[in-house]
């Protein structure tokens, strides 16, 4: 007998998605109606996810686990969806008649990620991962300027398809050695056989699919292109919610090894260092803000990986905290640059010129978010970095942390360049004030408060992160 009550968050989002499917069938396009519906439904979605945070249990023949870990991530994902929909009020880069489809795909992608974080069976993991990826492929393509988004989509799709083919191969190898596709069986068997080369290869192939999602080197090539080609809101979604889900599933899978494999840790250290360095060094030269944020998210994948590769409780909970931090910080950055590029075009440094006069609160939000991404206290970004770094030091990875900190200094350089564009550069011709309705001001103020408050009073969030990852020890 399946206890459907455990599945209510997912059911809610499924119904929401069905609702948008119905809306898309209506003859008259109405952007405002779609936006209001999406906003209301996703706000309720956050409530539904929050209500289910303490649920526990297994459903679907033990292939689907509801625990603190999955439920915390479901809250984060629904928050991500809600925040992204908040900035969809002027969806100028997507044709109006496609708006219901846009929301439909967003909701389905979120639903797929929710299933992903609850999956404890190789098949459900694979299926949900593919479902979310396919939604994102289409979302990237949905843009008025088809030429640019088409090439981005094709690149995204080819790399994605390759990664998931490799991953499927890895899953097959794992299955053939363990004889079961349940993660619980793999956990029990794997530590004994993890030193066999073929098993290691199996694990790495499996990880390829997740690395693709998180944009870890060497699966990061799609990121700048996809961000650049996609409409701004979709890029924001990929940068936030999608990364959160990737961190969640990586924690689940890496935790399988039980921290017994030095070899695995070493490879992950290398990948983390290369991701940070490549991301940060490439970001320095970017003028297009979305590309800059894309490269910075490659670097952030490297930082998040530090927590995961520490393979201890502090590291996992640090990574969960880091996922939250990334969600808030990246969203705030996208929020500001999307508001600055009023016509839905790709935001560049030039769009930020004179922002401190055109909208002081947005400029302040950008400042706080950028310093948060750079890991400057007292922001949530710093606390996240502190947690993952201290986990790595516990494992004795002093020089990894040192390299990461040097990377932080490099990244500071380009964050400051963005800041300079917003605070110092004067526009070529005088620009009018940015229209900032009350809702935008409130959202900006809320994000600033959240970033700083979570930096100064992280204790409750840390507790939640620790409770969420308690299942892995």
């Amino acid at each position, binding site marked *: 007998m399946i206890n459907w009550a455990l599945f209510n968050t997912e059911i809610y989002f499924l119904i929401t998605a069905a609702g948008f499917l119905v809306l898309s069938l209506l003859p008259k396009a109405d952007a405002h109606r779609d936006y209001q519906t999406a906003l209301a439904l996703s706000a309720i979605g956050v409530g539904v996810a929050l209500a289910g945070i303490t649920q526990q249990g297994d459903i679907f023949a033990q292939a689907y686990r509801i625990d603190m870990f999955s439920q915390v991530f479901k809250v984060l994902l629904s928050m991500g969806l809600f925040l992204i929909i908040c900035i969809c009020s002027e969806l100028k880069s997507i044709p109006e008649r496609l708006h219901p489809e846009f929301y439909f795909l967003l909701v389905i992608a979120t639903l797929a990620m929710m299933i992903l974080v609850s999956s404890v069976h190789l098949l459900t993991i694979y299926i949900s991962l593919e479902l979310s990826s396919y939604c994102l492929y289409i979302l990237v393509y949905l843009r008025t300027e088809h030429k640019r988004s088409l090439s981005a989509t094709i690149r995204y799709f080819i790399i994605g398809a390759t990664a998931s083919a490799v991953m499927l191969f890895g899953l097959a190898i794992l299955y053939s050695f363990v004889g079961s596709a349940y993660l619980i069986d793999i956990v029990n068997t794997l530590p004994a056989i993890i030193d066999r080369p073929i098993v290691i290869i199996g694990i790495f192939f499996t990880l390829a699919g997740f690395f693709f999602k998180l944009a870890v080197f060497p699966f990061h090539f799609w990121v700048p292109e996809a961000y650049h080609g996609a409409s701004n809101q979709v890029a924001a979604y990929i940068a936030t919610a999608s990364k959160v889900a990737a961190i969640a599933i990586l924690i689940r899978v890496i935790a399988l090894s039980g921290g017994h494999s030095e070899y695995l840790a070493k490879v992950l250290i290398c990948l983390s260092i290369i991701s940070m360095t490549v991301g940060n060094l490439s970001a320095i030269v970017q003028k297009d803000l979305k590309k800059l944020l894309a490269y910075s998210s490659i670097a952030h994948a490297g930082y998040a990986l530090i927590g995961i590769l520490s393979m201890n409780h502090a590291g996992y909970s640090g990574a969960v905290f880091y996922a939250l931090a990334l969600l808030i910080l990246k969203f705030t950055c996208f929020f500001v640059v999307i508001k600055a590029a009023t016509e839905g075009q790709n935001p560049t440094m030039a769009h930020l010129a004179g922002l401190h006069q055109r909208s002081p609160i947005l400029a302040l939000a950008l400042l706080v978010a950028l310093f948060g991404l750079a890991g*400057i206290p007292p922001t949530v970004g710093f606390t996240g970095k502190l947690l993952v*770094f*201290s986990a790595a*030091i*516990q494992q004795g990875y002093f020089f990894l942390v040192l390299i990461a*900190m040097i990377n932080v200094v490099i990244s500071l350089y380009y964050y400051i360049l963005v*800041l300079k564009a917003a605070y110092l550069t004067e526009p070529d011709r005088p620009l009018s004030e940015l229209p900032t309705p009350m809702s935008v001001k409130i959202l900006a103020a809320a994000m600033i408060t959240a970033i700083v408050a979570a930096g100064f009073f992280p*204790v409750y969030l*840390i507790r939640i992160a620790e409770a969420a990852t308690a299942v892995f020890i």
Partner: protein
Amino acid sequence: MDMQYANFPYLSTLLIVCIAGLFTILFLPGREQNKIKWVGVVFSGITMVISIFLFIAYDKNIGGLQFVERVLWVPSLGIYYFNGADGFNLPMLLLTGIVFFTGVLSMWELDTRVKEFFALYFLMVTGVFGLFMSLDLFFIFVWYDVSLFPMYLLIAVWGSTRKEYGAMKLTLYLLAGSALILPAILYIVNVSGLKTFDLLALMAPGTLTPLQQKFAFIFIYIGFGILAGVWPFHTWSPVGHVAAPTSVSMVHAGVLMKIGAFGVLRVGIFLCPEGWRYFAPLMAVLATVGIVYGAFVGLTQKDLKYVIGYSSVSHMGIVGLGLSTLTVEGLNGAVYQMFAHGIMTALFFSSVGYIYDKTHTKMIPELGGLSRIIPVAAFYFILAALTSIGVPGLASFWGELVVFIACFKVYPVLGVLSICGLVVTALFMLRVVQKTCYGPPKEHHTHIRDISFAIGVPRMILSVVIIFFGLFPSFMFDMIETASSSFFKGLP
């Protein structure tokens, strides 16, 4: 160390006043420039009063830590909100209070983006106060960064002379320092096995093995040393000082560089005494090179602010030399010199700021005869220069004297070299005074009005402090002694 818990959280009040000032400024409309300045004056004035009160109210007979506030902040990591005042940080808090207040007054004539300037200025000083009073490694790091990151905008928006370059260089250098400090802090916390960021708990003898102490010390020394302007990591400092606006230069050279030296003392020397002993000769050599190098480079400068910038490198070398002697006198002298140099540089930048505002130049060849045109402003400038030379009766003299006495016992050769460096400093300071304040006045400057009483207030306060501690150094030395002698007793 004894701890006296506070019946009233004076130290937190200091922070709360700063933050309250920050928020008041943020919520005032940007047009109301005068109101913003008055808010700045009132709130910074309160902090100065509190810092003076703390300095006086500290019971020197009992010693130890007083006004202690300790709250468990993040239990799972062992982070405490832990503030306390002792003989090392009270002089620094006093210094910050004075420089903060006089800095606000020195910016009275600012008229561009006033609101943003004062908001960032308050944020920066909050970080400085927090760092000096904190006894928890986590908070020390947090405040360190809080005091640094407003710097970029403060210099890049309101500065002069290659301001964007100077601001970027400064920010990256100083945050590179924090890149070394954070891993070292996490390393110390982790190898101690205590799961706490509490500085006093980590100070217990035997927490770290000598090898671990040496390893951690070098990172902390270089990390904080960058901010203290230790040669060869000083290059950000003259450039940054020159680019910064007056009050930012004041806080920056006056207080922020002391954060560096204070960090070496509080984190490096307190937690890793073995590392300190091991690396002391290196510290002494770098400090001496800094003293001599700063003096000789200062000799060739044409820009007034560069002159002060390089003399700061030289004077901070004296602090470093004092710290490297491993003696009570050395520590006393170093902390005294930190205080005296802070006040002195603040006066220096404040008076140069006035001269620059009026003459629109800070190039030495373009100035002359200022003591005839603006005698009062020139007086402040000359007083600062004399303090910088170390004339007896002015504050800096005592710090330098005590450091050199300590130094001659331990490193006689380096002491002699450093004294030579000081002679060169005296030479170039006198040369600068002679060229700018005496000689024929420049014609296009003759219309300049002298400093008015109201505008002169900050310089007056600083001058009084310099003369007071020049005449009564024991007020300060007694205070520092309570901390330094008990610190040496606590050493194994």
